[in-house]
């Protein structure tokens, strides 16, 4: 364990060098918002080293992310989409305690640079079995709730909002299937597609902005590859498109809610 000054550009660059020298560094950013300060080492060096020089960079970057605790605009962001369009990076965002252990072990064993997003509101709120298997794949979505009417795709803390919404909607006669992406890159589109082929309707819900991110990508792929299976437009639920406010009521009004997801599902169910 190496205790470093708060200088993200320095400790990220050092970690890339350590990885190139045969180590397997696990870097913790205090808040993922400050990944910007390590961006060059991550995006221009670590992600491209294999393609430029044939060298692996087995680096894990732990990135505590997301809001819900009045952290304001610099300590509440969900920056996963910044990295999803960088070839050479893998991106994970576990929603459960089981996956937190399992996917972190898989990330450390992976020969590629991995962004490991830990949504902070999950830290003490969810419990589960601790599982560690360094040979586990760093890929694959999971169906957390089977259903037949509408697919809700989610990940991270919002998965639990989706499950809450699904439980409430069941009382209204709407049977939701909830898919947890778990790993955002590589994306397990097959599991999403299999669910949507069954239900014909899909809402994608995450805490990140629905614009230009995972929801936008999935909506485009569903429209392009499963158009004939869709009975309704693809719905997207996420944070309102402005910086996360300090004010708790404003933050609450900015972030997605279980009721917001439920309303998006009801709208699709009416088609």
């Amino acid at each position, binding site marked *: 364990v190496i205790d470093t000054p708060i200088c993200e550009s320095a400790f990220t660059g050092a970690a890339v060098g350590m990885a190139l020298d045969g180590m397997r560094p*696990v870097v913790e950013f205090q808040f993922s918002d400050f990944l910007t300060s390590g961006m060059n080492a991550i995006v221009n060096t670590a992600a491209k080293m294999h393609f430029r020089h044939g060298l692996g960079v087995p680096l894990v970057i732990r990135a505590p992310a997301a809001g819900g605790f009045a952290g304001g605009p610099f300590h509440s962001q969900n920056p996963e989409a910044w990295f999803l369009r960088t070839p050479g990076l893998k991106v994970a965002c576990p929603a459960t305690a089981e996956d937190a252990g399992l996917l972190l072990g898989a990330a450390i064993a992976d020969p590629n640079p991995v962004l490991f997003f830990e949504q902070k509101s999950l830290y003490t709120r969810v419990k589960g079995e*601790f599982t560690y298997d360094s040979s586990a794949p760093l890929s694959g979505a999971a169906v957390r709730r089977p259903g037949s009417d509408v697919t809700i795709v989610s990940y991270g803390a919002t998965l639990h909002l989706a499950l809450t919404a699904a439980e409430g909607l069941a009382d209204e006669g709407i049977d939701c299937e909830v898919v947890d992406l778990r790993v955002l890159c590589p994306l397990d589109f097959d599991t999403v597609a299999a669910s949507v082929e069954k239900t014909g309707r899909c809402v994608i819900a995450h805490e990140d902005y629905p614009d230009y991110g995972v929801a936008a990508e999935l909506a485009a792929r569903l429209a392009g590859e499963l158009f004939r299976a869709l009975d309704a437009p693809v719905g997207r639920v996420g944070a309102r498109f402005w910086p996360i406010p300090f004010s708790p009521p404003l933050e609450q009004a900015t972030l997605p809610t279980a009721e917001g997801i439920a309303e998006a599902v009801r709208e699709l169910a009416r088609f």
Partner: protein
Amino acid sequence: VSDTVTYVEAIRLALRTALGDDERVLVLGGTSAVAAAPFGRPPACRRSSASSG
């Protein structure tokens, strides 16, 4: 290994396991609190250091 743990405890345990299993693994981070947090430093250290983040 199997036990009921919180999300952050699962991360701590995974780090400990990786550090024990593979001598190539090392952990580095932005503050002493952050680097030590997976190994049992009281949460107050994380909070007090947040203002410097």
